[in-house]
């Protein structure tokens, strides 16, 4: 099994497509962060004007942590999109290239091949979120330094510099969990089509529709909202509340985990039974 995972990783990480996401993040994040440094804290000053009269701030609130926090907004839609490029291609890509015929004619169960591919998808998701975290936080801290973190959580909240690092750590772990859900859904769509466009469009379509259901001010949607995975795409944000909303987090982890498990289970069921006609 280790050997299978290794060669699935070889296939994935020697493919150009795999680096598309890294390339985009690697270019956009520095541009945005440098632009924010140049623009300076104009926007944040406006927001904190009233506070400024009552408190004396220790250091600037426009700092690296603030920018890093702001960059995490990309976890709603942008990062999911980049993830689907690879996750949606995992199974469908083999159909497109006709290489199912190369690997499924061997004395290895489809279950093993399936999970090798899923494990590589997980590895990719984790590495990608880690890359985003290290690049966006590292660069922001270099450019703007540390300080207290200003967040908006039902009003303005200022988190003391001392435990911000730990909150980011937790936030990115939660973010990975929600990104894994997106990857699993793309993987699911990947199991029954013959090219990667379908899974990308289907996954993003589902995410966007669910996001609309989540934010639309319609009473009727209220009862189903907690069960939509999109409701919990902000799992990471709970790490920046005071006190940290562990019950919300627990619920989010459970809902997202259920979606991942259902997606993987269903795609396994399809994959191990389907006729390979590509």
């Amino acid at each position, binding site marked *: 099994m280790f050997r299978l995972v290794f060669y699935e990783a070889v296939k994935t990480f020697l493919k*150009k497509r795999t680096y598309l996401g890294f390339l985009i993040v690697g270019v956009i994040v520095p541009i945005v962060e440098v632009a924010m440094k140049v623009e300076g804290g104009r926007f944040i000053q406006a927001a904190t004007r009233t506070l400024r009269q009552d408190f004396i701030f220790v250091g600037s609130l426009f700092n690296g942590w603030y920018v890093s926090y702001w960059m995490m907004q990309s976890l709603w839609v942008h990062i999911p999109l980049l993830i689907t490029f690879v996750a949606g291609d995992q199974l469908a890509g083999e159909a497109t290239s006709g290489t*199912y015929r190369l*690997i*499924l004619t061997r*004395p290895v169960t489809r279950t093993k091949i399936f999970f090798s591919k899923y494990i590589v998808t997980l590895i990719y998701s984790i590495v990608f979120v880690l890359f985003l975290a290290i690049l966006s936080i590292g660069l922001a801290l270099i450019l703007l330094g540390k300080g207290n973190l200003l967040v908006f959580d039902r009003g303005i909240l200022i988190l003391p510099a001392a435990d911000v690092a730990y909150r980011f750590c937790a936030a990115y772990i939660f973010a990975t969990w929600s990104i894994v859900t997106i990857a699993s859904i793309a993987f699911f769509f990947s199991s029954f089509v013959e090219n990667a466009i379908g899974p990308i469009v289907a996954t993003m379509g589902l995410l966007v529709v669910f996001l609309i259901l989540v934010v639309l001010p319609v009473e009727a949607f209220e009862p189903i909202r907690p069960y939509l995975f999109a409701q919990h795409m902000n799992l990471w944000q709970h790490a920046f509340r005071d006190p940290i909303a562990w019950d919300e987090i627990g619920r989010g982890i459970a809902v997202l985990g259920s979606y991942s498990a259902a997606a993987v289970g269903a795609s396994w069921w399809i994959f191990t039974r389907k006729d390979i006609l590509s």
Partner: protein
Amino acid sequence: MPPEIVLQTQRLSKRFKQRWAVRDLNLEILQGDVFGFLGPNGAGKSTTIRMLLSLIRPTSGDIRLFDEPLTMSQHRALRRVGGIVEKPDFYLYLSAVRNLEIVGALYGGVDRRRMMEVLELVGLKDRAFDRVKTYSHGMKQRLGIAQALLSDPELVILDEPTSGLDPQGMKEVRDLIIHLARDQRKTIFLSSHLLSEIELVANRMAIINRGELVVQGEVSRLLEEGEQYVMIRAEPLRKARAILRRLTRFVHSMSEAGESLKVVMSFDDIPAVNRSLVRSGVAVHAIVPRRSLEDYFLALTEQSLSDGPNARVSGKTQRQ
């Protein structure tokens, strides 16, 4: 002791929607066979091979491979099989060696020496580290054979391995198949839509048409069965006919077929008949020995070209 049955199918059938691609197919491949699986385009050869390699699930019927049942979920016996179905596809962005590593991993790993061995066998050793993207069709076809041989299987299944090759390439593949069978004692299952090709390498064969088995047996026996005749084109035709009519020792019967005469006679007597014609001053343009199997197969092929496969079963659209 009778030879071991390597592969056996019983009433093997596959239906796509309304169309039977393969129906009630009984095949038997014995150890040491070069088994020719012959059929016109769309006859169901690739569909059969997909079932033999566990890519698709039969609608009904059974497959036994090395005396073990083979299904999509139970295919341990594939350990002793290497094959390729339809066109040779690979990870184009990887080298031949990497592709072989990936295949090898599915057999628990194959060492580099073996990879170079099979690449050398198909004449790709010096391109081993080039991306497959840079390969010609013929090279991919040969890499397809190389990957089939990688695990040193007892049974090698090849789906039209000479398709798209030039005559030289076709000959190389044929020689390779003969080498594998004779020197490496492999059993080979080989599909083709050309009788001439099967005839050159196979000892046993089956003909399939519209998904159904037409005939199965030893190649030499099948070719000899039925009538043998000779098409003779000569000038002047009338004179030739008069001479042939007198050669009752050789000529069993005769009829006119366009510009030629269809003469039922033994192939062994061709030189004697030719001599008589030439001596009498007849200009002989062509003497073509024909066998009824060839005609029969030609008819199948032409019919399938004009009808499209399975036209009778369902008039619906055809797969592109």
